[in-house]
């Protein structure tokens, strides 16, 4: 593990980034003042606001690391981190573009053909189009190789049949990157998969809502019934999707969204602790601050490794396991300090945040790979024979 190496020197964010941080904070303050958004926990997953995404895009704060020719600003990964962590801490509605900018754009840049890059990236960068991710299926959750959705080769393209599930935002996004079988497994169950870019308005697509236990709607089931996709909408070489998906994991798992989903709730604990100076509240506040501080430093360290072109898959799994457990435990710890009959319809801002967090918390340690699967990844790296 990299953190244990004698030669490892823990990276810090440069203080040069503070100017940018100040600009983002000023923007957020103004948005809050004018009612642009209401701070929510888990807003990178549930706060879907194309208008807000467009405001960020106009300021160059959305796809800011991308090349200028694709509508990016060629800013550093560290500048991007600062903007992202500020938005997450503020509970801003960034769900519309979050996964697309984090995963889909970089996927296209790395593996996509020129037609894909030239058509999609500038539109994504302007927050004109949004993407969903099509990995999971009814029989393929943690075990992605079980995917059954198939694309059959036809003249000029592919025809997709199958079903995707847990498609976040697919009722509101424009495209989905669909992970599907384009060739037989031939002995290697990870072989023969490709990723195809599907227009969600194409004939043959049905998007059905799957409501969360909170009543919220961001999951869907997406059904593909003879959906045609043009040849040049296949990402990279046919059959290379497994490697493509693996290459995204470091970015997907180590970011600040894996420990900041509940930050607005932690900020409320500050208010509670300040109100009565109860020692249990101040001690819990100190404890959560210590954990959060550590996680943030780990996340910056991973970002640095990624920026150096390394792929710290194991370390990313560690951060996600620790970060998401921190999120879930924070909810429980704070809840125990201020008992109430929680309701999402409560009048008090803290009670509403807590009620929503209690209902959302089980997802924290599931999405993007369950913690148990992450620990399998970690264990494999430890030198167990």
């Amino acid at each position, binding site marked *: 593990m990299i953190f244990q190496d004698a030669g490892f020197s823990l990276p810090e964010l440069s203080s040069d980034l503070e100017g940018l941080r100040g600009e983002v904070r000023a923007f957020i303050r103004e948005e809050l003042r004018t009612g642009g958004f209401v701070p929510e926990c888990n807003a990178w997953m549930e706060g879907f606001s194309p208008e807000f995404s467009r405001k960020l895009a106009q300021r160059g704060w959305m796809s800011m690391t991308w090349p200028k020719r694709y509508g990016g600003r060629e800013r550093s990964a560290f500048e991007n981190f600062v903007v992202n962590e500020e938005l997450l*801490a503020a509970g801003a509605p960034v769900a519309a573009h979050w996964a697309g900018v984090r995963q889909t754009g970089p996927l296209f840049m790395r593996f996509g053909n020129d037609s894909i890059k030239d058509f999609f990236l500038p539109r994504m960068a302007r927050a004109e189009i949004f993407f969903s991710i099509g990995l999971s299926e009814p029989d393929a959750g943690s075990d992605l190789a079980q995917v059954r959705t198939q694309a059959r080769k036809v003249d000029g393209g592919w025809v997709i049949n199958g079903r995707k599930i847990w498609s976040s935002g697919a009722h509101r996004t424009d495209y989905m990157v669909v992970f599907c079988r384009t060739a037989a497994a031939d002995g290697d169950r990870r072989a023969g998969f490709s990723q195809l870019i599907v227009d969600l308005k194409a004939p043959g697509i049905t998007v059905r809502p799957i409501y969360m236990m909170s009543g919220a709607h961001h999951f869907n089931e997406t059904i593909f019934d003879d959906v045609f996709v043009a040849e040049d909408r296949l990402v990279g070489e046919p059959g290379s999707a497994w490697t493509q998906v693996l290459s995204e994991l470091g970015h997907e798992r180590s970011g600040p969204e894996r420990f900041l989903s509940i930050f607005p709730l932690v900020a409320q604990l500050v208010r509670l*602790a300040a109100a009565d100076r109860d020692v249990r509240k101040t001690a819990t506040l100190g404890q959560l601050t210590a954990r959060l*501080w*550590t*996680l943030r430093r780990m996340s910056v360290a991973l970002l640095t490794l990624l920026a150096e072109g390394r792929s710290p898959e194991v370390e990313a799994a560690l951060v996600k396991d620790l970060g998401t457990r921190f999120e879930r435990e924070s909810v429980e710890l704070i809840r125990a300090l201020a008992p109430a009959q929680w309701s999402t319809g409560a009048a008090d801002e803290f009670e509403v945040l807590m009620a929503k967090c209690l209902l959302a918390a089980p997802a924290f340690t599931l999405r993007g790979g369950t913690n148990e699967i992450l*620990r399998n990844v970690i264990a494999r790296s430890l030198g167990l*024979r």
Partner: protein
Amino acid sequence: MSTKIILTHSVDKLLRSLCPPEAVNAAERGQWPAELWTALEHAGLTRAWLSEDVGGSGVGVGDVLAMLRTAGRFAAPVPLAETLLAGWLLESAGLPIPEGPLTVAPVTAGDRIQFRKAGSAWRLSGIARHVPWASQVRHLVVIGQAEDGCQVGVVEASRCRISAGKNLAGEPRDSVDFDAVTIGAQDAAPAAPGISQGALLQRGALSRVALMTGALEKVMELSLRYANDRVQFGKPIGKFQTVQQQLAVMAGEVAAACVATDAAGQTNGLGETACAKVRVGEAAGTVAALGHQIHAAIGITYEHTLHHSTRRLWSWREEFGAEADWAGYLGHWIAQLGPDGLWPAMTSPAGIPVDA
């Protein structure tokens, strides 16, 4: 090569030969590891925190923490951290550094030592509890209160009333009664600005953070080895997913501890020290429990070496402020900042703003 690598390599090499498990057990029986201590002194490691002007190597806080982390991995039964802390206090007060192992007092938040003028000398009073290694060192370095501010003094251990005690790891943690001890004017000096009992607690806490991180690494290493070697139901227990999950959780805690130690060493600030002591202390509890669970019965025997690390973890997490003390302190300051103050505090390049 960086200073950090040079320091950790030299400590590692030295401890590998002079600090086998038998030496740790012998020290618990009260045997002073003279050869080990002399080797550390000769290598200049006991003076690493001193500037070159007074015979030290002028190494930064973070590099010294890396060295202590290595010492923690070997459960080195010597007052290395304490001698470093004592040297730092003495140098800051412009006092000469005596030869031999040293320790510091007081190390417990509620304890106070008074300095009163008695002619040109100082008369001390007060009791310091749980002073590490007091019964085995020649000199103690005391920080206390005089009428006109904080004083640092050197006291010969033989002149104090010391009642021997031990922590859970069997390391000397002694009660030192300073009543009626007088020290000459040349052996005391006003503490430098910024140096106080609080500052000693902060740096002491950092030393324990580093030692604990080393001990955590050791528990991880032993547990992995055991999971590979121990065969039950026809296969190494490390083949079972439940054991793998436990080891993965341990790896996460060790990673967090390494990062917290490094991060606190970079700023050497009070807020960061608080965060690190809390986080590494939490890791200590989790990792020690998992390590024992994986080792099962053999791990709870004296003949196995797991307890060298786990008993130290259970002791060190309480020393220089336990998690609850530091978390309460940190939370108290954060609460004053208000709900909109937590995030700026967390991200401030100047560090988490808390006051002594």
